[in-house]
């Protein structure tokens, strides 16, 4: 158990960082809010109102730490449905009612609701939502708005829209389509360019800035009207005083109707699932690895939704992309969410007229990209790799959702999953007999190891996973846990996936999470499902080595290192490093290891952020095991951004006697005293006279790399040489 920290002091210390992070998030929240609201057929400002109300209420009352709340992608479809069937005034009433239901879910402790759905079915539903968003907004992005009944016809007509766009005569429409396509390019290629200055502003905000700049360029420099057709511009945004004084009318007239409650239930279901999944995913990114109180968050989201509905906003949900941007920019507590809401207010107060200069196609390009990300081919590939039956579940849910709507879609997904489980096991009684049984036993082994032992009987699938989850949640993550499935006849993919999350959570907090008793199942071959995934040996990277790999092999020979091209999933040694606190290492490959196992040079694939803000990065790094303990620190070249960060509370350790070093290098670490002692003259001179590298210590080993990309063979040689010399300087110092 960790000692109690001085929370108030810590809060104020971290406040500048959180305000900064909230500012960056508000840059992405503004265009997304406008776009999501427009896509839902609500007034554009509704999305921003949602983010403001949600940000204020959830940051004060919520139970999670680094999440950001606002209008959600998944809800676009349901909100759109509610508005078109009920009308805007009644839709606000439906939103308010769904807020009440959300609060109720929170009070009934239904925070585990999302665990009751098979993960492939949820993926299928989200992909369907993505396709619907993409299908509808794609046409607007090309300046060719159409209205159709079914989401499928929107998708089918995409080629026609592209063809039409090539033959536009109206220059207004050509400019509109150009703005849309250009914005889409920005969204797609933004993450490929890793430039510190460019990345400071999120892609959606670049789109906003560029399009407002474009409009001013025509007005101020060319003295012309904006060439983009007027109907493809964001409609008038009310000023802040109008928003606060002219509240929308909320009509509860339909409250007895079936359609009304259908909308309420859809809104509640999707809002809760989206929020719960996001909270779960964001908890994985939290650098402090805290656990969110989901039930409390649900209550806050419900209250936020009620408030938002009365003020003319939409459902408040926890959103994954914005939350991950928050984490990446140093957000550590709920004040970031609050400051994101605050900056949105500032934007509305100062720039509400400027927002009408944004072309709609540009905003919709952001949504098209979002929709694509929800239904990307990568996702399908991933699901296929888990198992063919998962793909069936995925597509059944996807198609039925497209055809018949969300509620029927997800129900069909659950049904298909159950049927597939029956078929795979050729046994229905196994499930019916044991479904209600409390099949999980947990005890603490009384011997010296004092492991938690969890034994699961009969079967374990999405239908009864909550029992296992309840037990596992009651164990703090710094313990050792053994989950035994040897008495369990069937374990499904949803469970395996969730257990994998537990595994990484335990690894990050210093515990261990082992799953045993599944080897028998594999040998049995009756249960190929997801177990195959567990048993899968990392695939060989292929015997056809690339040119670079051949070069690496040569380097290995020259430096008498051993080389392996295979993917290695064992990246645990990286988790103690500060750099990986907010990043998820996927695997390392192209390893060069010396005979003593102290030097390890490798290529790594890791991801940063989630969803549309997700960026997959490959880099080459050197890991040196020092065998002695040194202070924990992180050293990097000092840049302009670091100076900005420094204002925001990321403090740099400076040395009075080494002005040049202090100016050029950015050194951070908790224990300033020991770090100052460690960085003696020799070491400082070494750094001053050598090229810049990012160097991190985790207490007993070093991680060194130069750029967040793969290194060339020459750079690898330089990195190896640098590492060797650094090690000798450090060891001569310590000895």
């Amino acid at each position, binding site marked *: *158990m960790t000692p109690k920290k001085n929370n108030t002091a810590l809060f104020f210390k971290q406040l500048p960082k959180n305000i900064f992070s909230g500012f960056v998030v508000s840059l992405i929240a503004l265009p997304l809010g406008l776009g999501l609201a427009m896509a839902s057929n609500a007034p554009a400002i509704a999305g921003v109102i949602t983010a403001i109300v949600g940000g204020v209420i959830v940051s004060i009352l919520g*139970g999670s730490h680094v999440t950001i709340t606002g209008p959600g992608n998944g809800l676009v479809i349901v909100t759109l449905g509610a508005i078109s069937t009920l009308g805007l005034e009644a839709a606000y009433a439906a939103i308010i009612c769904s807020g009440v239901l959300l609060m109720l879910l929170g009070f009934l*402790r239904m*925070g585990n609701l999302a665990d009751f759905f098979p993960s492939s079915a949820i993926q299928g539903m989200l992909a369907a939502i993505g396709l619907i968003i993409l299908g509808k907004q794609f046409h607007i992005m090309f300046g060719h708005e159409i209205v159709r009944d079914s989401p499928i016809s929107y998708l089918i007509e995409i080629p026609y829209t592209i063809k039409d766009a090539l033959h536009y005569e109206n220059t207004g429409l050509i400019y509109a389509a150009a703005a849309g396509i250009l914005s889409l390019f920005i969204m797609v290629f933004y993450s490929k360019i890793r430039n510190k200055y460019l990345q400071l502003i999120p892609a959606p905000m670049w789109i906003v800035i560029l399009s407002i700049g474009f409009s001013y360029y025509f007005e101020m420099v060319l003295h012309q009207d904006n060439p983009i057709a007027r109907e493809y511009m964001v409609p008038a945004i009310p000023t802040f005083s109008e928003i606060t004084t002219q509240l929308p009318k909320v009509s509860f007239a339909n409250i007895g109707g079936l359609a009304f409650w259908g909308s309420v239930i859809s809104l509640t279901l999707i809002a809760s699932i989206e929020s719960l999944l996001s909270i779960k995913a964001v908890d994985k990114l939290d650098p402090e690895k*805290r*656990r*969110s*109180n*989901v*039930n*409390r968050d649900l209550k806050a989201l419900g209250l936020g939704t009620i408030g938002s509905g009365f003020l003319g906003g939409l459902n408040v949900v926890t959103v994954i992309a914005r939350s991950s941007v928050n984490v990446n920019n140093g957000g550590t507590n709920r004040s970031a969410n609050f400051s994101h809401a605050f900056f949105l207010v500032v934007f509305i107060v100062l720039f509400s007229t400027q927002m009408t200069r944004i072309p709609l196609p540009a905003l919709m390009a952001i949504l098209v990209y979002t929709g694509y990300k929800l239904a990307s081919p990568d996702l399908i590939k991933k699901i296929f790799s888990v198992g063919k039956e998962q793909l069936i579940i995925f597509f059944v849910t996807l198609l039925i959702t497209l055809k018949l709507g969300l509620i029927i879609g997800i129900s069909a997904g659950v049904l298909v999953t159950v049927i597939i489980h029956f078929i795979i096991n050729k046994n229905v009684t196994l499930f019916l007999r044991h479904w*209600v*049984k*409390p*099949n*999980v*036993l*947990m*005890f*603490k082994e*009384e011997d010296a190891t004092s492991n938690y032992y969890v*034994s699961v*009987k009969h079967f374990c699938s999405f239908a009864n996973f909550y029992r296992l989850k*309840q*037990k596992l*949640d*009651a164990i*703090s993550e710094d313990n050792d846990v053994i989950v*035994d499935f040897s*008495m369990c006849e069937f374990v499904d993919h949803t469970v395996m996936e969730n257990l994998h999350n537990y595994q990484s959570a335990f690894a990050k907090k210093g515990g261990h999470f082992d799953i045993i008793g599944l080897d028998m199942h594999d040998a049995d071959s009756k249960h190929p499902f997801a177990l195959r995934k567990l048993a899968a040996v990392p695939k060989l990277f292929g015997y056809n080595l690339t040119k670079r790999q051949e070069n690496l092999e040569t380097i290995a020979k020259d430096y008498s290192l051993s080389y392996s091209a295979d993917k290695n999933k064992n990246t645990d040694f990286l988790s103690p490093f500060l750099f990986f606190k907010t990043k998820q290492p996927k695997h390392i490959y192209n390893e060069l290891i010396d005979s003593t196992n102290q030097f390890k040079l490798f290529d790594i694939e890791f991801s940063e952020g989630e969803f549309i803000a997700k960026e997959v990065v490959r880099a080459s790094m050197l890991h040196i095991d020092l065998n002695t303990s040194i202070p924990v620190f992180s050293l990097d070249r000092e840049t302009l951004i670091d100076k900005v960060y420094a204002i925001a509370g990321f403090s740099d350790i400076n040395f009075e006697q080494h002005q040049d070093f202090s100016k050029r290098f950015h050194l951070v670490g908790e224990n300033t005293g020991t770090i100052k002692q460690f960085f003696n003259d020799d070491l400082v001179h070494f750094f001053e006279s050598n090229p810049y590298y990012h160097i991190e210590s985790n207490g007993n080993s070093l991680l060194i790399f130069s750029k967040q990309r793969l290194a060339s063979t020459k750079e690898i040689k330089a990195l190896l040489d640098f590492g060797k010399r650094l090690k000798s300087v450090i060891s001569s110092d310590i000895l």
Partner: protein
Amino acid sequence: MTDKIFHTIGVGVAFSPNLKANIYEAARLSLLFESTLVLIHVGELSEEKEQQLLDILQPFIDQNLNYEMVFKTGDPVDVILSISEEKKVDLLILGALQKENLVQYYLGTIARKITRQAKCSILLLIKPSVERIACKHIVVNGLDDPKTKQTISTAYFVSHKLGSKRITIVEEITKQEVAVSVDDDKSLRKSAIVKERLKHREESRVRNIISEVPDAYKKDLETKTQSIFGKRGYSIGHYAQFIRADLLVMNAPMKSGFWDRLFPHDIEYILSELPTDVLIIR
């Protein structure tokens, strides 16, 4: 405490393939516990049946087994229950059924009904055997219940008589008892503290009970206590199965009615799938 807990042992006799094994087990226990054995058969008395039973019992009669045979027609449940009462049976032995293919044992309807209604202790055998199989490890519940004291001391008596090596007293800690729902890190810490406290409380309670057990029974016996987290009555079976115990000793349920079968708890779970031989103390 006397050296005799079970004065009379009853066994239901049906002419099934398990007949010999059931009678051997019952007779062996009667000799060990120095009790009288009552063989109860639901059906007509016939020379042939009587002779068959006597043949089976012969090796035990040679060892001075006190026995009695009762033949009576009627509803099996009623007959066995009424004769048990009439003959003052303290322990009734019943065989369970094994479900095909699965290594899971279920009680037949008759045995199940008897178990629910009987006023004496019940021993459910999942694998009666002609050869004696040593009972090495006994698991007993340590619920916070007035009956637990008797159950634990009986378990010690039985293990002493059977020459068991190990006895594990299991305290089941239910979610309701912990009463702190885990939402976040803070409530997790709180629940961990509550659990630790509960564990200590339970352990000291069980230790008190054990201290009252005669030392003679505790000789050559390793006693262990174990707290488990799970559903009361069910998880102990799961645990017994997991550690491959040879006998599970449990309190009798308070009463079991319609609702209990619909929403099974305690003993009902054990009856629905027997983890091992089960002794229910009344």
